[in-house]
C-alpha cells in the first residue's frame, strides 16, 4: 500500500495567506463597517467564480516573507454577470498594501492576461504607496521600472478602479489610467499622503482637502462618482462594465428592454420649457429617451454644464453628450471640454455609438477660461470628434450657437443629424446679433428692435438646413426615442460587426 501524501504544509500555507494581516487588523475594519480585500472580491464577483493567482506570493525580502500574505495585493480572475474579469484587490492589512517587487509582478501578470484574453481589469484601491525600506537608496532604484509597460494605457480592455480607502502610489496611478473611477466617501486619492506632504513641504493638510471625494468629483474630475459604502462602490463597478464589451474587439452586450421604456417620452415637453430664456435639466430629457432606468451618468459633479452618460436604447449601449442649460445656461467651459473629450475617447475605444443632444449658447468666454487654455481644450475635443469612428448622431433641441455647434457634432461631424422644430441655429443670441449687426438697442427703439429680433430668429429656424439636406430630418420631441432606435439599427456597421478603428486608444487619460 502506497503512503498517503501529506499536504499539511500546503494547507497550512494557504490558511496563513487567507488570514491576511491578522485578526486584530481585520476586526478593526469590521468595527468601522469597512470590507476587507477578500470580502470586497466576494461582493464584486459571481459566487464561487474567483480563481486566485499568487495566494502564496510574499515579500522578496526573506525577513518580511512571513508578514506578507499574498504580498498585500490579492490578484486573480473571476466573473461578473457571467463575463470574465481580471482583478487586483489591495489588502491594506498587509503592510498597507504597499507596492513591492513581488506584488508588482502580480499586477503585471494579471494585466497582461487581461489584455491577451480580452477581460476588463478591475483595481480595488487602498494602498500606502511604495514599500519602505525596499525602495530606499540606489539599490531601491534597481527594483523600480522593471515593467516598462506598467503605466501604458492602450485601451484594449476596459479598466475600472474603485478607491476604497487611503490611496497613494499605485492605487492613484491606476485610478487615473482607468475608464471609470468610483470613490467611497472618506477615501482619499493623492500623489502622497497628508503625513508625507506635511513632513516634506511643511504644509498642514486635511486629507479631504488633499484628495477627498469633493475635490476629485467636483474640481479635478479624476473620479467619476462618489458613494457612501464599499458595497455601493462595487455595484457601480459592475454597472459600469455592463455597458461595455469585455474587450475592444467586440460590440457591447445587448440587454433586454425594460417594460414601460416607451412611456416616459410622451411627456417630454413637460420638462423642456417653450421659452428660450428658461433653463431646464437636460438629464430629464435623456431619461425619457433612454430605456427605463438605464441612465449611468459619469462625472455628474464636474463640468456640470455638459452631461456625459452611458445608457441603452432598444437594449443597445449608447454614450450621450448633452449640454445642460440648468448649469451656466449650458455654456461650455474648460471642465466641460475635458469631460467631453475623455468621454469621446472612452466610447470610441469600446465601440459605443455616440449621441449628441445640443442646446448651448456657445463656449463660456472670459478671462478664467483663457487662463486655463480654453482654446486648446476646445481643439482637443474637435480633434477627438474628428477621429471618432463609432456612429455619431446629433439632435439639436433648442439653441446650437457658434463654433461649439461643430463640437456638438454639427456639420459633417456626425453621421446623421436632426433637429426639433424649435431648434435655433444662430451664431449668437438673436438680441446680441441685432445689437452687433444693426446697432439697434431695445432701450432706444423697442419696436424696431423686436422686429429685427424676429427676423433674425426666423432665419435661425431648422427648415433651411433640412432643405439643403445638411440635417436629415426635423422631428417632434416625442418622436426622438423612436428616431434614435431606427438610426441605431440603420447605422449597424454590420461589415465590421460594430467595431471601430480605435484611433483614440492611445490618447491621454485626463485632459
Amino acid at each position, binding site marked *: 500500500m502506497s503512503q498517503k501524501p501529506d499536504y499539511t504544509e500546503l494547507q497550512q500555507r494557504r490558511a496563513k495567506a487567507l488570514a491576511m494581516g491578522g485578526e486584530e487588523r481585520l476586526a478593526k475594519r469590521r468595527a468601522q463597517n469597512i470590507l476587507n480585500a477578500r470580502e470586497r472580491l466576494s461582493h464584486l464577483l459571481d459566487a464561487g467564480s474567483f480563481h486566485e493567482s499568487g495566494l502564496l506570493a510574499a515579500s522578496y525580502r526573506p525577513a518580511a516573507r512571513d508578514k506578507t500574505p499574498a504580498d498585500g495585493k490579492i490578484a486573480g480572475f473571476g466573473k461578473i454577470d457571467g463575463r470574465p474579469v481580471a482583478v487586483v484587490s489591495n489588502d491594506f492589512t498587509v503592510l498597507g498594501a504597499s507596492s513591492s517587487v513581488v506584488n508588482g509582478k502580480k499586477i503585471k501578470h494579471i494585466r497582461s492576461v487581461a489584455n491577451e484574453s480580452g477581460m476588463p481589469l478591475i483595481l480595488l484601491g487602498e494602498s500606502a504607496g511604495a514599500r519602505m525600506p525596499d525602495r530606499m537608496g540606489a539599490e531601491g532604484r534597481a527594483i523600480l521600472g522593471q515593467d516598462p509597460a506598467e503605466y501604458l494605457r492602450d485601451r484594449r480592455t476596459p479598466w475600472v478602479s474603485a478607491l476604497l480607502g487611503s490611496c497613494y502610489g499605485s492605487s492613484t496611478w491606476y485610478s487615473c489610467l482607468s475608464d471609470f473611477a468610483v470613490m467611497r466617501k472618506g477615501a482619499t486619492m493623492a500623489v502622497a499622503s497628508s503625513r508625507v506632504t506635511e513632513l516634506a513641504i511643511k504644509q498642514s493638510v486635511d486629507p479631504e482637502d488633499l484628495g477627498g471625494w469633493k475635490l476629485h468629483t467636483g474640481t479635478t474630475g479624476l473620479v467619476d462618482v462618489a458613494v457612501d459604502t464599499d458595497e455601493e462602490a462595487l455595484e457601480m463597478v459592475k454597472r459600469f462594465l455592463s455597458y461595455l464589451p469585455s474587450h475592444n474587439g467586440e460590440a457591447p452586450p445587448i440587454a433586454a428592454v425594460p417594460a414601460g421604456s416607451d412611456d416616459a417620452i410622451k411627456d417630454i415637453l413637460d420638462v423642456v420649457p417653450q421659452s*428660450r430664456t*428658461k433653463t431646464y435639466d437636460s438629464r430629464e430629457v435623456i431619461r425619457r429617451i433612454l430605456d427605463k432606468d438605464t441612465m449611468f451618468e459619469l462625472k455628474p459633479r464636474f463640468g456640470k454644464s455638459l452631461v456625459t452618460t452611458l445608457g441603452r436604447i432598444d437594449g443597445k449601449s449608447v454614450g450621450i453628450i448633452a449640454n445642460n442649460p440648468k*448649469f*451656466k*445656461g449650458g455654456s461650455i467651459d474648460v471642465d466641460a471640454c475635458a469631460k467631453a473629450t475623455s468621454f469621446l475617447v472612452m466610447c470610441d475605444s469600446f465601440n459605443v455609438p455616440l449621441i449628441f443632444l445640443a442646446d448651448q*449658447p456657445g463656449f463660456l468666454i472670459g478671462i*478664467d477660461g483663457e487662463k486655463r487654455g480654453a482654446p486648446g481644450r476646445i481643439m482637443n475635443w474637435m480633434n477627438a470628434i474628428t477621429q471618432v469612428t463609432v456612429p455619431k448622431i446629433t439632435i439639436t433641441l433648442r439653441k446650437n450657437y457658434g463654433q461649439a455647434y461643430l463640437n456638438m457634432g454639427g456639420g459633417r461631424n456626425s453621421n446623421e443629424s436632426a433637429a426639433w422644430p424649435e431648434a435655433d441655429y444662430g451664431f449668437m443670441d438673436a438680441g*446680441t446679433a441685432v445689437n452687433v449687426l444693426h446697432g439697434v438697442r431695445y432701450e432706444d427703439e423697442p419696436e424696431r428692435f423686436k422686429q429685427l429680433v424676429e427676423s433674425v430668429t426666423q432665419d435661425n429656424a431648422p427648415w433651411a438646413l433640412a432643405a439643403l439636406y445638411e440635417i436629415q430630418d426635423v422631428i417632434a420631441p416625442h418622436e426622438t426615442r423612436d428616431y434614435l432606435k431606427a438610426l441605431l439599427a440603420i447605422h449597424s456597421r454590420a461589415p465590421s460587426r460594430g467595431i471601430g478603428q480605435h484611433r483614440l486608444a492611445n490618447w491621454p487619460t485626463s485632459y
Partner: protein
Amino acid sequence: MAIISINSDITGTVWKVLVKPGDSVEEDQELIILESMKMEIPVTASEAAIVQEVCVTEGQAISEGDVVATLEV
C-alpha cells in the same frame, strides 16, 4: 458643521432670490436665479445644507466668482 460659500459661476444680474436664512436646501436646489447670456440661470446648492446667509439682492449686478450665499453643511 462647516460653512461653505456658494459662488456664482457666471457674470449676470440677480433676477430672483428663492431662499432665506434658515431654509433647508437639497443638493442642486436653486438658491437664486441670474439673468445672464439672455437666459435665466439658476445658482444651486453644491450639497444639502441650511442657508446661513443670502449675500445678494434682486436687481444686483454680480461677477463670476462672487459669493451669493453661505451654507451650513
